């Protein structure tokens, strides 16, 4: 992974924690942790992606009283799967990256929903078909801008 991509991913994680934990903005702020994970996974391989997802998920679960571990599991799986995509798709064109980020974020949300405590999660239709896709578009848009502004060039090794 190049230094630029490492700095971009580190910056995205730090910004994510600042917006969500320090400022408590919730859904008003984009999910930059998953964007960082998806971008980093393309460069570090599936074990590295899963490990990064594990650590990021653990940080997010520090405030989860009911479904502790849901983010750890979802982020680990997303990190591993995202890394495998470099064997299926080469290049980092903007359309590919946009779809990659949207699907990655939506997939992560679905996994969290799936393993979360049934009594505490939102109704499936509202969450899977409306809320989560909108959040995924939001995260992807911000991720694309960050990628274009701060780290041009290929992500993969």
């Amino acid at each position: 992974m190049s230094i630029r991509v490492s700095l971009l991913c580190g910056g995205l994680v730090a910004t994510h924690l600042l917006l969500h934990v320090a400022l408590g903005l919730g859904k008003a702020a984009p999910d930059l942790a998953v964007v960082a994970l998806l971008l980093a996974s393309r460069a570090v391989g599936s074990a590295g992606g899963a490990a990064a997802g594990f650590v990021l998920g653990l940080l997010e679960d520090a405030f989860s009283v009911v479904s502790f571990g849901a983010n750890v599991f979802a982020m680990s799986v997303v990190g591993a799967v995202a890394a495998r995509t470099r064997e299926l798709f080469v290049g980092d064109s903007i359309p590919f990256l946009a779809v990659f980020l949207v699907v990655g974020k939506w997939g992560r949300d679905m996994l969290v929903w799936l393993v979360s405590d049934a009594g505490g999660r939102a109704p499936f239709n509202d969450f899977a078909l409306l809320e989560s896709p909108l959040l995924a578009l939001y995260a992807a848009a911000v991720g694309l801008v960050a990628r274009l502004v701060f780290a041009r060039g290929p992500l993969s090794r």
Partner: protein
Amino acid sequence: MAGQPRESGEGRRRDFLLTAGIILGSLIVLNLPPGSQRAVRQFLRETVLSPLLEINGAIARMRERALDFNVLRAQMDSVTALVAAGRTLAEENRLLREVLGLAERELHRVRAATVIRTGTPGAESVFLLDAGSSHGVRPFDAVATEAGLLGQVQEVLSEQAVAFDWSHRDFRASAMTPDGRTHGLVEAARGGYREQDRLILRGTAYLSELDAGEELLTSGRGGTFPRGIRIGWIAEPAEASAGWSRNYYVDPAVHPGAATHALVYLDSAADSLAVDPDSASGPGPPVPR
């Protein structure tokens, strides 16, 4: 744009095994016993996330200080008027308790705390308090704002506590109308979106119908919440159980997202009608109506 494998067979195998191990580890984390989960959460909050939580608390305190002086003045005037009116009531209450042989009314100790709310997934109904066991806070203590009941403490560290608000699925509070004639159990009722969450009052007597706008207070039953904290107001009837009980939707008094400052009730609710054990003759003569 098909990709190609970039690693040797041995490297791929090692990568696969490591990945499988990490995902297995994540499944283990997901199924950890509650005590271990709590320990991991506390460790993360007290180490890596501690500076971020400090910033969050500082912002919350700044937001409190930015409150309009005129609003604070009006609130203080209202409280002053209430206290003045209550002085004679306290004297009357003491005399009546003596006549009835009831124990002295216990006052609740409270601790003021700043509400710290994070925006991470899975923490929607959870908030932190900057007061912990060193300040006397214990699990299951009630948390309230000046408007009414906010939630309940769940986990306590030395300088910090984790609590959930009334929108949490495990929240329950025994409730009553101010005249004490109708009792029930209040719990969260999920809306389509989190902003539509409200409360539902279950199990009220079928024959005691409540009107919209009627106030609900904690009844103190069960000993978790002190008696008399405002919960909200009756909004509309929900379903009724065929001639046995009625349920009502309740507009909550406190909107959790807006709370920046709260009071933690440090003592468990005492029974305000307990008989004085030193009263040898028991309850005194009946009071004429």
